[in-house]
């Protein structure tokens, strides 16, 4: 398309105008234009932008974090995805990085568990056979609670006086609860300082032991002990009086873990304001154990008195039962060894005794024997059947009695007004001598001495003075006849009774005849008793 001269002229004017404008722009904005150009280059060139961004990115992220959490939220999926990819590509990188932390954490967890277990075993062994533990086990069975819970509830040996929740990093008090008043801020004077000092001591202990992962678990004082449970972000410090059971550690651990779960956000962003931890009080309250039982209780005097009385009663009863049994046993032994007594049954009752058996009539009275052993005879019921014991003593006794009886019944008869021994009476005398001999032998074996009294009598006819002489004469005749038969005269006494003690009274012939006689009477006594 061709241009007319008019067009060319217009163009030339336009160009001239543009140049002038450019010149004017260069004149007015020269420096800014250069800068604008440079800016354009910076924005267009990714390399330059990246370099610049790298210089401020750190500060920008920090600022954003201070302002709000948008960036964190935005990063969340990116970081998660990046971790996933990293693990998928090469798991060993992450594993190597985590190994030192995981190893340490696992070691700590295992050590804690073992420590708790060892303490538990020791404690269980200590009390497994005690009366208390049996009582607690029974209570656990009865109430359906676990044995551990009952131990915590009933252990009078400790009392958690106060619990402090401490921020691990700053040592600040997050929450504080003490026994009785439950008011915060009381109890350990200067709880804030104490908790700060604890964290300082913890740091110090780690420094001097050169073990940065070691935790201060326990501080022991004379009258109390401080237990510390370490969570990742908070410590639970308990001041405990007495000897706490290991179960308490589990309670501290459980509550601290719950606090970490419930207050994870508040713990992570803690900057000095503890009001967010008001809700942790119930957890601390759970750690204040032993509050129902208060101080390690001393048994009350009343209780002590009752226990003493019961003990004394039991001891006394035991003593009496022992003494009663012992007396009874001795008594039975004596009865069993007693000649002429055979015990076939013995029974002990609450208030009386019963014995059954056989008894020789000559044997001692078993019921009366009881008195020798401190047993009241009226409490003994004896059921004894009579029998003849073959014991030598009893056979001798029986022989002695029999001979004595024979002699006592023997009479030597005399004719009227005479002291002559008739021949048939001489046979009697022989008989008498034989009996006397046997009696003497039996008496010797029994350790007795015998004495024979010979009583002469006369009938009531004739003068009394003559009768007295005659009766004496008759007795002496018998004495003489016995002497002749070898009987020692010192064993025998003679008495003339005359008619003073007639065997029969009356004047009939048979009554008179029986009084013309000599009768015998044997006396015996233990050897040596004779005056």
């Amino acid at each position, binding site marked *: 398309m061709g241009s007319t001269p008019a067009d060319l002229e217009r163009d030339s004017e336009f160009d001239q105008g543009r140049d002038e404008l450019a010149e004017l722009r260069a004149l007015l904005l020269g420096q800014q234009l250069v800068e604008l150009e440079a800016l354009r280059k910076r924005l267009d060139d990714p390399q330059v932008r990246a370099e610049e961004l790298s210089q401020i990115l750190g500060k920008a992220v920090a600022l954003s974090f201070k302002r709000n959490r948008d960036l964190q939220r935005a990063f969340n999926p990116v970081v998660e995805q990046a971790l996933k990819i990293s693990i998928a590509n090469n798991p060993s990188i992450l594993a190597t990085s985590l190994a030192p932390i995981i190893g340490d954490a696992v070691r700590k967890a295992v050590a804690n568990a073992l420590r708790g277990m060892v303490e538990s075993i020791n404690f269980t062994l200590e009390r497994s056979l005690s009366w208390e533990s049996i009582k607690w086990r029974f209570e656990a069975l009865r109430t359906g609670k676990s044995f551990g819970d009952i131990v915590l509830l009933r252990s009078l040996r400790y009392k958690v006086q106060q619990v402090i929740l401490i921020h691990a990093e700053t040592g600040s008090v997050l929450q504080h609860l003490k026994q009785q008043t439950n008011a915060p801020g009381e109890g350990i004077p200067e709880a804030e*300082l104490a908790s700060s000092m604890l964290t300082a001591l913890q740091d110090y202990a780690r420094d001097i032991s050169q073990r940065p992962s070691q935790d201060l678990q326990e501080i022991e004082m004379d009258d109390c002990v401080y237990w510390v449970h370490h969570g990742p972000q908070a410590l639970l410090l308990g001041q405990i009086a007495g000897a706490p059971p290991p179960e308490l550690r589990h309670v501290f651990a459980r509550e601290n873990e719950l606090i970490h779960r419930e207050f994870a956000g508040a713990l992570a962003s803690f900057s000095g304001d503890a009001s967010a931890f008001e809700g942790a009080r119930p957890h601390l309250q759970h750690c204040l154990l032993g509050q129902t039982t208060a101080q390690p209780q001393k048994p009350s005097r009343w209780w002590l008195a009752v226990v003493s009385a019961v003990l004394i009663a039991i001891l006394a009863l035991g003593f009496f039962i022992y003494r009663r049994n012992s007396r009874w046993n001795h008594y039975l032994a004596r009865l069993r060894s007693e000649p002429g007594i055979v015990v076939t049954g013995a029974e002990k009752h609450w208030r009386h005794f019963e014995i059954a058996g056989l008894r020789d009539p000559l044997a001692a009275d078993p019921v009366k024997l009881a008195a020798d052993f401190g047993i009241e005879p009226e409490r003994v019921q004896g059921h004894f059947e009579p029998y003849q014991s073959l014991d030598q003593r009893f056979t001798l006794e029986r022989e002695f009695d029999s001979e004595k009886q024979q002699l006592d019944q023997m009479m030597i008869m005399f004719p009227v007004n005479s002291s002559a021994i008739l021949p048939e009476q001489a046979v009697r005398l022989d008989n008498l001598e034989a009996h006397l001999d046997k009696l003497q032998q039996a008496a010797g074996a029994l350790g007795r001495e015998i004495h024979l009294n010979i009583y002469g009598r006369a009938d009531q006819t004739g003068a009394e003075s003559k009768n007295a002489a005659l009766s004496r004469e008759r007795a002496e005749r018998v004495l003489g006849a016995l002497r002749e038969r070898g009987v020692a005269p010192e064993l025998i006494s003679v008495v003339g009774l005359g008619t003073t003690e007639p065997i029969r009274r009356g004047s009939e012939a048979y009554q008179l005849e029986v009084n013309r006689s000599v009768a015998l009477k044997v006396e015996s006594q233990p050897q040596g008793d004779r005056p």
Partner: protein
Amino acid sequence: MIQKKICMLGSAGVGKTSLVARFVQGIFSAKYLSTVGVKIDKKNLTVDDQEVLLLLWDLAGEDSRSQVQTSYLRGAAGYFLVCDGTWAESLVTAKSIHQRAIETVGDVPFMLVVNKSDLWNRWEITAPELEKLVADGWKVQVTSAKSGDGVEEMFTKLTQDMLRERPISDAEAEA
């Protein structure tokens, strides 16, 4: 009530413990400082209508034989770098401690405290030196533990800074 942990850092003998003693009625004996390396005191303060409980960790001073135990700095919301105006070397030490403190607690409020203003005629630290630090963004407070000058101010000012620095809480973040 807000609780804040503050550390006192600096060379041995610059007057850290005296500054704290000026400020609080302590209950712990100074024995702790030589044994455990730290003495802790507390002080209730009201700053900008906000009640604050300050936990003052007075760390054993640094000298040629021992360095500050930075583990005690953990969790600090702020710290003082204390130096002695009459002793130029103590400012060098304070700067060096500052570097190590940042590594432990990060970018938290701090303040340079130049003590012994009562001995101003013997000062070795010069005004231009301090002006340069102020220009770099440092807060500087001149004090005298002996007369008490500037002591209240140093604690109040750092507390104000710390309260301003308070990171957002979860509730605020969710809003």
